[in-house]
């Protein structure tokens, strides 16, 4: 199963940024016929005119309800959504352009500003790319800490998405309890790591570590929270009203995957998985959780079970942590050599890929492939044919952040 991650201009030639199995790299653009996602990546698909009895129900840039600033152009003749076009340009901060001609440490800070809930995954992917470019190998402790914190990020992200879903389904007690748990994890992060969203922890080649006792305390407290979540989750599955609202809304199929190329829990809900964690040696025996169905309910179940799986992974990885805390020397050469590299990390909603070109220690070109770019197209495809009442469930079940896609 291959994915088209982007259409990039390298040395004046158009190349396709592709991932397929263990291969991540560039392919000549003559192979663009094999990728159905080529058309929308290139921007060749334009919004159609409203004709006959359709009118454009625009859910405007500022819609309230603590929602991000995007424009949903929904073409409808009443209750049913016939075509959806999402205009994401209101949140563009052009971070890729800002990264050019900055040194790698400043660019790392910028990469954390793309999307706060994925900030650790972004900084992980970026630092891995830089480490590959300069041939730096971080020590085992750094690698284990990075994996642990990636799982922590996954846990609080999934709790956030499930709380949004249940808020849309008007399960008020469940929602408020989940928001409370979400806030608890963020406070834990602040207490132990100094930042609620795990910002400013990761750096090139190493990571700000904490002592093993403190780490043990953190893992224990996180475990309590996840146990409480697990009890709540089992209880929520007994509410048929809640499940019925999520069942058969926002269905995606394998053909949608072929034409859009999304991944993450949205793909796992269809029955396939492109999780890059299977290639991690430190996570031996890792099996992705997949589910059949392709609707919002499957996506929610995948996320809930991934929370439990992440807790198990954290406990396993914690056993491997050593007490010593060797800091490797980070050597960034300031020569005029050209380097290119690709780095990736598994964020809660899919894999993030960074392609960077360096001249010395300054960035010359960056291309970021975020999972939300694909999930937004998947949103457009899955909303077609639904009624407006199911709008909130479909949108919230993907866990896509528009800031992430607008970069």
């Amino acid at each position: 199963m291959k994915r088209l991650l982007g259409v990039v201009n390298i040395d004046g030639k158009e190349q396709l940024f592709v991932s397929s199995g263990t291969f991540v790299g560039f392919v000549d653009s003559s192979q663009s016929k094999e990728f159905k996602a080529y058309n929308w990546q290139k921007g060749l698909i334009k919004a159609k005119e409203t004709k006959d009895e359709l009118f454009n129900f625009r859910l405007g840039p500022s819609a309230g309800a603590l929602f991000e600033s995007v424009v949903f152009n929904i073409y409808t003749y009443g209750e049913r959504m016939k075509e959806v076009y999402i205009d994401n340009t209101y949140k563009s901060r052009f971070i890729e352009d800002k990264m050019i001609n900055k040194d790698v440490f400043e660019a790392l800070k910028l990469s954390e500003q793309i999307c706060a809930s994925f900030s650790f995954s972004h900084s992980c992917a970026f630092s891995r790319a830089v480490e590959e470019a300069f041939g730096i190998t971080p020590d085992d402790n750094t690698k284990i800490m990075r994996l642990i914190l990636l799982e922590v990020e996954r846990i609080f992200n999934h709790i956030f998405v499930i709380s949004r879903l249940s808020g849309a389904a008007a399960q008020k007690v469940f929602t408020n309890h989940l928001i409370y748990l979400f806030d608890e994890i963020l406070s834990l992060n602040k207490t132990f790591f100094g930042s609620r969203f795990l910002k400013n922890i990761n750096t090139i080649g190493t990571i700000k570590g904490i002592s093993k006792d403190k780490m043990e305390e953190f893992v224990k407290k996180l475990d309590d929270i996840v146990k409480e979540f697990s009890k709540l989750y089992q209880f929520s599955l007994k509410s048929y009203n809640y499940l019925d609202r999520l069942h058969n809304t926002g269905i995606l199929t394998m053909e949608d995957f072929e034409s859009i190329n999304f991944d993450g829990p949205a793909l796992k809900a269809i029955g396939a998985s492109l999780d890059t964690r299977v290639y991690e040696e430190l996570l031996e025996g890792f099996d992705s959780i997949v589910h059949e169905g392709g609707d919002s309910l499957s996506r929610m179940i995948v996320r809930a079970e991934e929370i439990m799986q992440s807790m198990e992974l954290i406990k396993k990885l914690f056993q491997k942590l050593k007490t010593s805390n060797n800091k490797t020397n980070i050597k960034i050469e300031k020569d005029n050599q050209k380097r290119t590299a690709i780095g990736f990390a598994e964020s809660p909603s899919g894999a993030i890929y960074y392609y960077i070109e360096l001249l010395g220690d300054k960035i010359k070109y960056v291309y970021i492939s975020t999972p939300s770019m694909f999930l937004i197209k998947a949103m457009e495809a899955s909303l077609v044919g639904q009624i407006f009442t199911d709008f909130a469930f479909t949108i919230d079940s993907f866990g896509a952040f528009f800031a992430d896609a607008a970069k």
Partner: protein
Amino acid sequence: MLAFVLAIVFFLLGMVFSFNRTISYSFGVLGAISAVVLGFEGYKDGFYYQWDIYNNFSLGINIDKVSSFFIIIAYTCFALIAFYSIDFGKLFKKSMAFLMNFLMLSMLIVFCAADFISFLIAFKLVTIILFFSILERPNTHKEGYIFVAFSEASYALLFVGFAVVIASNGLFLFKAGYNNALFAVFTFLGFVVKMDGVPTHVWVPLVYPKAPSNIAAILSVPLTLIGAYGVFRVLALSNNYSYVLGILAIIIGSISAFWGALQAARETHLKTLPAYSTIENNGMILTAVGLSALAKYSHLTVLSKFSYLTALIIIIAHSLSKTTMFLTIGHAKEMLGRDSIDDVRGILKHISKPAGIGLLISGLSFSAVPPLVGFAAEWMLLESLFQSYKFSDFLLKFIITFAGILIALAMGLSSFSMKKLVGFSDLGELNFELKRFKDFTMKWAENILSFLIITSGVLSFLIIKYLGYEEFLDGLLGVPKPTLVVSSRPIFGVISPFMFFIVVGFFLISLLIILKAKNKNVKTTIPWVGGLALKENEVYNTRGYSFIVEYVLRGIYRTKELRTSVETYDISNAIYDFLVRFFKRLSAIVSNIIMNGYLHYYILYIIAIFVIALIVFKL
């Protein structure tokens, strides 16, 4: 008598001078005004003249209370339609002026006739004239024929009913049909077909959009008034059969009302929505008349009088409001050249204020908003249906309660449809180019009609007093004596549109004065739709408004969701489609059998005809 002769003279002059449209329509207006004066005279005194020709054959003119009431209402609307047509008729040919005057003359005969022959001749003339009027628009032959088909169906039923009377007594006068069962049934059914009872209503949504707007107003108001007039006469003449006729009237009436409102809720075409509203209102008139007959049968005289009064008030409400609606719609439609509700936006701001206000007031009257006359009419109908507990017969109680449920549903759905019609067309911004033409008389006709709707609602107690039903006026709790309308004695329910107008008017005017005096700085902004201004293709349309009803009732409407539109239709058309297909097949089969192309069969036919002719003429 003088007014009668004057009316006929004016109409004839209008027909003669039809080469100049203004003069012709003005004569029509004068004739209609004389007819109204005739009506008022006839309501006070009455007038009867019989002309015996030979043997039992006599012609007669009978202007009593019933016919003068109908003449007043129908000719008020006719006068305003003719006044409106002084400028509107300039968009059409000169023959329309001739046809309209002729039509007014024939209808006067219909309302005044006391014998069968003149009634039938005038009735037929009305059909033929309206056929030619519908054809004033190009490419409307099919719709004209459909209209003629249903008119002929009603004519045939009436003919049979009258023939039964002539065969039994040999008399040609209406009063000879007293207590004749077959006469009652056939003429009743004939007049119900004229009033567009379900399922003979299918021609209405097909013909009204294609006819010119003033002709559509005539089709909707005076033509169905003929049906109502006939039903009144038949029920007065057939006291022995009022049980059966009353039940029939209530059932057909309530089902028509409900069906009309149901189909109006899904329409997005400018003239089809008022067409279904016509069917609904005629159903309400039938229900009220039927209830009156049943109450008389059960010896409930007060209820019988009250529901009779209800029928009269509904007739007033429907006639005035429907005329206004069609005239204002015609005004907007001719200026914009469009006929879907979405395309005709911005009537109030851009096209003309009288048209916008007329459409608004008629829409409010149909939605039963106080203190307009439609509010009084619908309240009275619901009150008379509420009094079903007074009946002792269980079957009657059951039928009337069921009819009440259907009427209440119909009122809700019609309010929904009127919001759609008025809200989307009166407000908003223009989408298309305007073609301005001279519309002075059109504006004044609309103004006069709006004024009439408001005053006949506010002064409805005066109308009730004039009609002679003073027992239903009272005073209570600070409302002065004759301005309160009660629904029964002892008092069951009360309203007072007059007091409502005074009190609410006082508050509104004082509010206006206070607001103007404060003189605050008012900030105007665009509507908040997420922060950006609303583009043209983002405006909510009528299909979006009705889709929820179309989806929930998709079984009844047979809703089909296509790629960019939604299709619904009226399933009563299925009956006629089936009949048409059946008869086409039948005639194809029969003609294949008879005219089969073999020479021997044709020779056999010739020989058979010779033999039959020999036998018959020998005998």
